[in-house]
């Protein structure tokens, strides 16, 4: 088993609707390869599935590769997950663990991410884009190396191990979704809706009875209704206080 550093550029965030524009790989010896608009990645499949893939936020990359090319990244080291674990969870769902942040933290370099959104399918890469794409991988070895020190220092070996092993399963679950009994779902929906309408009708009736200010007559149908949004959580409460 060898190491491969991986990153992808895409046209959007969803693997279901967006496309993969480039796949960047870097070998342990520093060779950087960029594959533009790949139709099939069959030739690379064994390499990606049988080696340790290192990248930042690999869940994103894994989902694209699995959904669009049928490739499952089995052994991964995700610098994003590792950083969250190192921070004791403080960085989970917060700013501070992006690749840019880690490059600055561990390498002291400010990354320019201005090219991030410029990747288009079918459009040749500019020199800047090529450099940007490769640059995303350039700092990963250093980040990983320094994270290893932290992991060792904090005794997080097992935690990181579990996190990384979980990632392929999470990818699978997020892409697969879960089974829903649609008939039962509709049944429950109808039941709740009926209760909602009954409650709404009752409230309307009560309001009109007790306070004529809220009573308006529908110009078209001539029906009575209330002039306020009774679905708003605060309004009925206000009315109740007024009463």
């Amino acid at each position, binding site marked *: 088993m060898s190491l491969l550093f991986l990153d992808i550029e895409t046209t959007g965030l969803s693997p279901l609707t967006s496309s993969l524009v480039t796949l960047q790989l870097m070998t342990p010896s520093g060779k950087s390869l960029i594959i533009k608009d790949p139709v099939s990645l069959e030739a690379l499949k064994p390499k990606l599935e049988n080696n340790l893939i290192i990248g930042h936020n690999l869940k994103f990359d894994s989902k694209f590769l699995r959904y669009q090319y049928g490739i499952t990244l089995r*052994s991964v080291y995700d610098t994003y997950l590792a950083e969250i674990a190192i921070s004791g969870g403080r960085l989970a769902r917060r700013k501070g663990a992006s690749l840019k942040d880690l490059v600055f933290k561990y390498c002291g*370099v400010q990354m320019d991410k201005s090219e991030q959104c410029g990747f288009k399918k079918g459009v040749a890469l500019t020199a800047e884009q090529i*450099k940007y794409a490769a640059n995303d991988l*350039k700092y990963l070895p250093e980040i990983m190396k*320094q994270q290893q020190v932290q992991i060792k220092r904090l005794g997080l070996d097992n935690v990181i191990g579990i996190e990384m092993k979980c990632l392929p399963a999470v990818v699978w679950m997020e892409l697969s979704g879960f089974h829903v009994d649609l008939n039962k779902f509709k049944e429950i929906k109808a039941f709740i809706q009926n209760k909602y309408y009954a409650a709404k009708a009752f409230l309307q009736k009560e309001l009109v009875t007790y306070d004529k200010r809220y009573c308006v007559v529908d110009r078209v149908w001539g029906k009575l209704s209330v002039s306020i949004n009774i679905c708003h959580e605060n309004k009925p409460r206000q009315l109740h206080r007024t009463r």
Partner: protein
Amino acid sequence: MSSLLEAARQYLSWGWAVIPTVNKIPCISYTELPHFNPTSKDCFDYYLKQFEEHSEAQGIALIVNPNMLVLDLDSSRTEAEFEAITKNATGIKTARGSKYIFVDRRPDLIDTCASLRDRAGSAKFHIREDVEIILEGMLCELPPGLHPSGQRYEWINEPIKGFVTPLPDVLFNEVVRYGETRREGKNFLPGELERLLQGLSEGEGRNEAAIRIAGHLIGKNNNWNVVESFLKSWNQKNNPPLSDNELSGILESAHRYYDEKQEIKTCFSTTVNQEALNEVKEMTEAEINLLKTNFAQRKLKCDLPDDHFITQFVKYADRMTDGYQDYKILGGFWLLSSLTQRKPYIDLATSADGIFLNVWTQFIGFSSISRKTTVIDIARMFFAYAQGEPLTDTDYSLEGYLETLAETPILAMINDEVSTVFQKMNQKYNAGYNEFECKLYDCNSQNKRLASGGKKEPKVYPVKDPYITKLYGTTFVKYKRSMTIPDFDSGFGFRFVYTAPTYDFKQRPPRLRTAEDIEERSKMEARTAQLFELFNQSAPFAMGVTPEAFDYYIKTDFETQNEIKYKTNQELLGQAWSRYSVYILKFAALIEIGKKSVSRVITVESIKIATSMVLDYFLPTLCDVYNLLTVDPVNNKIDKILEALKDFKGIASHSVLLRKTRLESKEFRSLISTMVESDQIELISEKNPKNGKITTYYHYLECDEIEFKNPSSPNSQIPLIPRFTDTKNTMGISENLDFLKESEGMRLDTQTVQYKKIQILTDSRIENNVCESGNLENLGISVNLDSSTNTREVVNEYKENDKNTPFTPVVCPVEDAARILDEEGIY
């Protein structure tokens, strides 16, 4: 002022940090400035407030941000050459007619800019005679500020919402080339130094030139007086010369740089060669802390099946007390050895009566916390149960000892504080005690005659077929007080196997005895009594040795002897090995005897485990114990420093160590110099990322530690070592057993440990640690440390590659990528 305020507001909204100036001098101290974060409202307000507070301000200066470069194009020639750039470029016209062009710093210039900044405090460089590049953090005047001459700065092309034009390729190449020249250690372009030395006019960068010249002179190891006087005389050539204030500011910052260099240099006397100076390693605080944990980590490991006597003993001891595993394993061996009662022996041709399996063990450890006595008491309890009578501490005079031996030549001796016994043995009236003990160790019968002092007939004590096992414990300090080098010279000290662990272990609070404890104890008692009875009733028998096991033993013996020949402490090791090679056979035989069904044949597996125990643990520990006696921190100042370093877990900063040792600074430095030259310690420097202050650390290299090659194959024939978990109150022994069955054990075999120790001494810690953290293994990926694909090497390789060749990505189709990966050996 209102126009300045308006302009400032606009610049800040673009994400440009600006501050007020008067005559190009900032109104606020540069160090007071917060880190500029354009999205933060507080930051925005802070900068804007500066303009409101400093109504005297005439100018407005930009703090060049990291994503921007400013080019100062000086002469008209340049302007003509770069007309295409200046025509559409975002830039300003200065009062002198030169132009500041603001360009976007391309991502591929990150490294160049970073390396330029690292080399000097200044971030302004003449990449050509007439082109100056201004980097992140420097100040640059902006319109509508007023130049001291009275003219206003004007935009040639104003940036739209802060966006600046890209850096043209022509200039990009110039910057990269300049960066490379600087990286090669050449501070000046060809002819540049000569030009600077002739003196400069105003606006030609006199400040920057002064700093560079000072740095250049300091770099050439010039004395500070030389640097100072040279700069003063050079300044006179400038037109006009820099003011005294400016020059003294430059001298002050240059002097700081000079001091930093001196701080490292003065650690060495003039006799220290330049190589040693170059060996100062730079590390971060985290790496330095890591070194601390890597010190004194030797652990005794002995992997045996779950139903083995030793495993059962360790498990019981582990259940009853925390404390070092090393004690528990060795205590188990002592118990087993005592139970055999001179019955099994190894019939080596070289020994007269064969080699009996008596083991002399010595626990050394810190008082109380290491739990020596607890483990000794557990072993004592089981042996007392087995033999049916209590086993008391031995505290004999020679005469009393002889009397006891004459009555009971098979004796299990136990003492949890043996220092007083050792002290007695060294008294004059006990002369010859040590030598007598050595003979007892060999289990030879003898008649010992004690001198009577001329009053009576001398007494003769016949000691027939003795078999003595010893389980002793003491602390480091007491051991040092009670044992001497002559005790080792007589061979007495070499007959013991030592365990002296100092690593940190997880302590557990005391608890009450449970029914399960009693159940486990009775099981262990039954097994101990069974073994005692077995050997008690058995006739003496010779242990068999399989041919493979014997070959292995001979090979180990031969190779270790050869290795010892080339060691510096050859005599010590030679003496030790003559006893310890026999210990391999003894331990191997005990391992066989401790099996569930007692085996009478030594197999290759047991001899491999025994070899590993002796070579990887007992022999190095013996050397440590011996060194403990030779160290004299009172009279020998180097020893004093080394002892102090050990107190700080092997690494300490200059000031801390100086304070601890209470030596004179001059003397201390000279001692440090000697120790660096003799490779006893190494120097490590740490740069504080906040204030840039450099701290020097000294790291004890453990150069006296003995490392032996184990003839076992690199892939370790030694089975995995079970990890004994901390037994909690809530956890029954059966659960614990289940855990042991399921646990994969540690993958680190003894060879790997040795390999890593060597790496610790030779490699950078951080890289070494990538291997050591083992987290890749936790990922379920076995990374072979010997193969070419381990992370450390991969990272090294990558870094080397990065240094030597530019970072050139290749755009290629999938098939080509697969082929390239195949060529790289990635399948």
